[in-house]
């Protein structure tokens, strides 16, 4: 497997884009992340991550319609590409295989026994 160039924050942003499709743009993503993690997330950070992901080809974007709250400005909407989906899937596979390899005793020991 090629070494993933997907950072942790990027991965989460990418996931959020997939989860909030088709209305994914910085504000929605940032708000979503704030809700999920409980920490404030700045728009600039999300925007930077989105830019990087688009450069890497995991996302594609187009300019959407303008709204009143935005002072008449348009928003950039993001959708995940097939390549992005593949990368996300790969990352998930790595994680799952690792999870599956954890012995039940170990899971119990660290208080993660769900069975």
């Amino acid at each position, binding site marked *: 497997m090629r070494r993933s160039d997907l950072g942790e924050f990027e991965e989460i942003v990418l996931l959020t884009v997939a989860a909030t499709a088709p209305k994914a743009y910085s504000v929605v993503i940032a*708000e979503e992340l704030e809700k999920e993690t409980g920490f404030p997330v700045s728009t*600039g*950070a999300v*925007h*930077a991550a989105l830019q990087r992901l688009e450069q890497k080809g995991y996302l594609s974007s187009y300019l959407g319609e*303008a709204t009143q*709250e935005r*002072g008449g*400005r*348009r928003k950039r909407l993001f959708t995940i590409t097939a390549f992005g989906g593949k990368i996300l899937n790969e990352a998930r596979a790595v994680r799952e295989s690792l999870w599956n390899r954890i012995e039940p005793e170990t899971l119990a020991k660290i208080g993660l026994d769900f069975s």
Partner: protein
Amino acid sequence: MKKNILPPKWLDRLATKLCAPHLREELIGDLQERYAMRFERSGRQKAFFFYLREVFGLLRLSVIRRKSSGYSSIPLFSSEMLANYFKIGTRVLLKNRGYSFIHLTGLAIGLWACMIVATVVIDSLSYDRQWSRGNDIYRIVTEDQKGNSGPERMTASHEGLAQELEKLFPEVETWSAFSYAERHFKPNELDEYGLKTELLRMDTTAWNMLDIHVTSGNPRRYIPGNQNVILSKSFAERFAPGKDLVGKLIYDIPTYQDKANPYLVTGIIDDLPYNSHLRADAILLNVKNVAPYAVNGFYSFAQNYVMLHPGTDVAAFSKKANHWYTTINKDRGKMRLELQPLKYIYLHSAFSDAQRIKGNADAIYIFSGIALLLLFIACVNFINLSTAKAFARLKEAGVRRILSGSRYQLILQLLTETLILFGASIVVATTFYNLSIESVEEFLGHRLVQTFTTNPEMALYASAIVFLTALFTGLYPAWLISGFKPSNTLRGIITGTFGANSLRKSLVVVQFSISIVVLLATIVVWKQLDLMKNKDLGYDKKHLLGIDYVSWDGKADAFKAEVQRIPGVVRTSITRWLPSQGGGFMMRQVPDPADAEKRIKVWFVAGDVDLPETLGLKLSGGRTFSKQYSTDALNADSLQQADFMKFEQAAMSQASMLTESAAKMLNVKDLNKQIRNAHTIPVGIVSDFYNESLYEPIKPTIILAHRAMQDGGMLIRVQPGTEKQVDAGIHRLWKQFYPAKLLEVNQIEELLDKQYEAENRLHQLFMFFSGLTMFLSALGIFGLVVQAAEQRSKEVGIRKVLGASVAGIVALLSKDFIKLVIIAIVLASPLAWLSLNKWLEHYPYRTEMNWWIFVITGLSAISITILTISFQAVRAALADPVKSLRNE
């Protein structure tokens, strides 16, 4: 519809600035949307703080970085571009010849004045910095804490003091006394004339203090027998060209003996550095032979210098020495010692009357300030004119930018023009500098060692400073001109933010305030000088000749009788006091009759019985001295030699004349009665006269008469217009009486005027600088008026067509500028009043600052302005309106 909730404007603007243009649409929109959401969820305050964080969150490269335009830009500093800047720059300057000339004149004058003043300042600061041990050498200054008039500082200290300090304190490495002397040397005993020689008198120990390079002879050791003199190379060359003088005797022209004194030349040295307060033609060596220091009330004085071991803490040493000094004098710290560093002696010795070579720190400060202000005015002119010209160049700037020139390119273009102008000005200024430096030296009365032509390093620094000034001056106009939007300027829309106008106005006000202050200073200095030169001194200083102190060798009366017979001589007097030579031959502190605790100082002036009349003192009571009274004139010299006690007794009952202030202070009511505390019997009272310069308050003085004086000077009152003839007569007589002796005859008035040389120089300098500042300010305002007339030519044309008169148009154009000058007058007058009052406080007799000074200055500033303006304004008003209106 939902109400639009927007974040604070300024934060929004900041965010927009930070954000790259291509990201603004989406990113700023996102920020505002989130702000609105937050606002609704948690209120204004939280939303605000979050927004603040968001804006700071934008500080990341991916947001800030601007997208490149996609075209390769021309490098700003490639050689082609530089050549292009230069070419366009020179073309622009040549095209606008008038402006370039005004710029050039102003800048060249400003730079030239700055260079001259900088030379003088640097030269003054270079004094006594060349000695290798200079940092360890100090002059001992004694400070007398007198009750009434503040501490009095003297460079003289007790003769044995330095030696005692060396003995007591290990910090002192060595010491020497330094003093000046003047001799007229001649190579052979029988020569008639001698060469005036300035001598540095020093002790043998001084060889270890100063770096003096001996070229021949072995002068370090004192050779007993004759006085030892060491000549400098250039003096020896002047004195006896081509001859080796080492080991030979040379002779002086004496003032006290009637035979020439021999001096042994023990060596030749390299010239002493010119920029040192110790500079001299030759050295007169003293043997160290000083009586041990003792506190007994009788002291000889000397100018003592000590050299401390390197690294000594001077403050601590000074404290220690003072502690000892106070203890040994038992005066509770009334007399204090101060160690004055060698390198400060030249500039900070205003208190030292005896010092021949000294500068004036205050004058240096004043004129460096004025020169800087002058340069400032020149630069202001430049900025003003360039910004005024910005209008004319907006189209050019617009076209350049549309043809893909960047703003920085445009700035560089304009800066290049500035640099070319400054370069040309510096060439002109340097030329004038080289031409004028000699006259400056003449004016100062001494050579300048450090000049921009002799010291390339200094010239390098100066060029760097000029370059920086040019950049600084050129930056603002360049920034302004290049900053307009090309689309607007080309359409002829000049946005309202042409705020340069108020800046220009305030610069003009500052400029004129400076010139007005300088002009006021010129008038006040002139008035003060006039006051000091023309004040009634209490005696008649005109048509009065003086012979310096000599020994008369018993022939005084015979000589006097002969002089009296020269046609034109009215009256003569052998005297122990000459005007301009101190307060008197003796000063005594006597008990104050009004207050037994206090003592008052009384000065004594002595001469023969003719002295009061020769001086022209005005008698206001009693009688003057006369030969008929035997008690009037005392044979002081022979009595003193024969029996000191007898002399004292005779002096007690000696007749004297008092000045009015002395009579008042000593409470003299009846004449011809002995005043006990002053040991004298007053027979007459004369009105007050000024013994010394007007820097000093009037001194209570007692005049005594002596007979058959062995030494002294001579005052000769002559008929008006016969000064030259009498002078020649005296010289002829002198040859007969004293063939070997030195004679110096002076006009007393000239000697007195010389005392005010500092003020005289100050006055001349102020005249010069006030002329320059006024000229430059007028030049600046002229440029602005030309500009205004050009810009408003259409307006003037329309007004004329509609029937405006020439006078009305001139008034229209001049009004604004005259308003500025009036503001400048209002601002400058109190400032000048305060600072000049402060300056006048130095003088006990000071001129008044009348209201008319301010009126005259104000009027002349306004009339100069009107004159400058009207020249151009009238031309604009007379122009044919058809021409200006048709032209597009």
